[in-house]
């Protein structure tokens, strides 16, 4: 337990260091750091609606974060969650407006199709990664660009809403993810994310499949000697990660936008990856880091209104957090040698 506590302290210190550097950068762009941080907090938790807004932003980050966790634990860097999200979102919208089905069933079918779309999109990089050892980081990053352009093409040239601007027709109400409160667009997608995070954590801790996946991630040689089909396991891990990425897109489409449009989810995939890294690949931890990033995102909307700082300042802060988390591993390692043997070198 003390090990875990120390790791937690490490993350907190990293966040503090990042916020301090962020403050200096905010000073450099001629704005008061205190005002920026207060505005961020006010924008994220100021009132009931703002809190719901924060949770709304948290949802896709959480689901993408769980997708990243699955990859990280299984030793695969899925940087293509953004692309899987776009494909999943588009696929869900397609089912949502083109395939009339009874209420409830419609939503489930749309989500399943989103999951399949995400898995299908990652299957090619996954195949080449596991069969030919093609670097999955580069192939999934590049496939992000293709995914964004491809879905834009589909939306604008094949399925454009008549009279609309780069968006598909609205999905049928039977496919909506129901909203939790009347005053916000916050929907059951958040619950989906929470359940998923817990389920994945349980899977890794208590099932043979989860154990062998994390074994492949942490010690592939050992796993191979132990009789695990490492390639197959890696393929499954990437596919699962991509499937969850697709689910994130489906939830976003069915719960929030009710249509697919160009640039509908900017950067959620990357935010999810960062949240998972900050949580050290733990799905439960990702719930909290995703909430943190969701709050930053939500708060940044007010930032743009109330201060001179642009909302991208939160991107800077996120990047700084990850940099300082990655930097302090060495300090930990110096302290005691066993702490250095981590699942993946941070």
């Amino acid at each position: 337990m003390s090990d875990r506590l120390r790791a937690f302290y490490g993350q907190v210190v990293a966040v503090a260091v990042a916020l301090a550097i962020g403050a200096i950068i905010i000073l450099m762009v001629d704005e008061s750091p205190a005002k920026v941080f207060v505005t961020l907090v006010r924008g994220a938790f100021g009132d009931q609606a703002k809190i719901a807004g924060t949770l709304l932003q948290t949802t896709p980050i959480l689901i993408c974060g769980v997708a990243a966790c699955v990859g990280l634990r299984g030793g695969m860097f899925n940087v293509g969650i953004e692309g899987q999200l776009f494909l999943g979102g588009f696929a869900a919208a397609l089912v949502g407006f083109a395939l009339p089905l009874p209420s409830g069933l419609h939503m489930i079918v749309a989500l399943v199709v989103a999951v399949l779309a995400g898995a299908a999109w990652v299957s090619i990089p996954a195949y080449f990664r596991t069969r030919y050892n093609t670097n999955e980081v580069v192939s999934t990053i590049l496939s992000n660009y293709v995914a964004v352009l491809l879905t834009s093409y589909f939306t604008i040239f094949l399925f454009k809403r008549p009279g609309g601007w780069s968006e598909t027709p609205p999905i049928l109400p039977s496919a909506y993810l129901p909203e939790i409160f009347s005053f916000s667009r916050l929907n059951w997608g958040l619950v989906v994310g929470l359940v998923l995070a817990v389920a994945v954590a349980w899977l890794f801790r208590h099932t043979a499949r989860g154990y062998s996946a994390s074994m492949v991630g942490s010690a592939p040689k050992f796993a191979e000697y132990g009789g695990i089909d490492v390639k197959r396991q890696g393929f499954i891990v990437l596919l699962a990660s991509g499937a969850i990425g697709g689910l994130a897109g489906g939830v976003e489409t069915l719960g929030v936008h009710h249509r697919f449009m160009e640039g509908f989810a900017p950067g959620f995939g990357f935010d999810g990856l960062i949240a998972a890294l900050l949580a050290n690949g733990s799905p439960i931890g990702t719930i909290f880091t995703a909430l943190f990033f969701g709050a930053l995102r939500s708060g940044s909307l007010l930032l743009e209104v109330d201060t001179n700082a642009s909302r991208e300042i939160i991107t800077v802060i996120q990047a700084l957090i990850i940099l300082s988390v990655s930097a302090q591993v060495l300090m930990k390692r110096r302290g005691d040698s066993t702490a250095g043997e981590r699942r993946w070198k941070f």
Partner: protein
Amino acid sequence: MEILANLVNVALIVAMLRTTAPILLVALGGSFTTKAGIFNIGLEGQMLVGAFFAVLGSIWSGSAFVGVVCGVAAALVFALIFAVLVVSFRANEVVVGLALNILAGGMTISMMKAIFGTRGSIVGQGIVGLPKVQIPGAKALLGSWAPLISGYTPMVYVAFLAVPLLILFYKRTRLGLYIRVVGEKPEAAEALGISITRIRYIASLLCGLLAGLAGAHLSLGYITMFTENMSSGRGFMAVAILIFSNGDPFKVLAGCLLFGFADAFSLRLQTFGFPSYLILAVPYLVALAALFALSYRSRPKIIRETVETMRRLLAAEKTPAAEPEKTLPR
């Protein structure tokens, strides 16, 4: 009619060389880190800050040259942070590289808003672009083919001249050799008393230098403007090239020319009315296809052995008594 076709061909090649230059520069930069055994996914970010600060410097000083220097300096700072974290702190190079890319994107947009009060792009504002270099006598020598060698911005020449220079650097200089040793056999380097840390720092900084030049070329070369995330994945394509070229300058050149061609050709397709979204995806698809098709270094043993046996058979048919393997470098 024939002349027209000819001209179009020349124009296409010229366009190809032009679009090749930035990705060639950044990929050659990455060849330093690749050779030194560092997987540098942060090229994209270095290029982006290079482009942004080149524009800043150019506006501030009114000189394109100072702009380039500023761009390179910014990229070097990023390269230094990368080196400190990856080499000294032994952080995960993928995590650090990605974080630096995200940082570059957020930072340039924030600064753009803070300094210029705009979102999206910086246009005009007194940005001085790089001049075009006219090579004297090119017109007399080549006639209508002169644009092939003359009239580019300086970075294009730098990029293509860097290829033979880098080949010489790796083959003939001590530092080049050290970089290769550190990358291929760190244990040997250590045994020889070469400081791995120092060599990797040097490789990282050399990489930042070229990435900065690439960025400056993007924003001060053929278009004098800065737009959000204007490196648009070129750094990642460069990494793809580096993976299948293993950082060898000549193979890097070949890969980059392929991309330059894909870029120039897709621009041309656009004028024929193909949907721009699909056209824009072409370079990425080419990168992916090349990455997948050429990852044969780590193909399963059976395939590799088959290929090698076939090659040996073919070689044996041509020169029965020769020993072809020995004459190959490395």
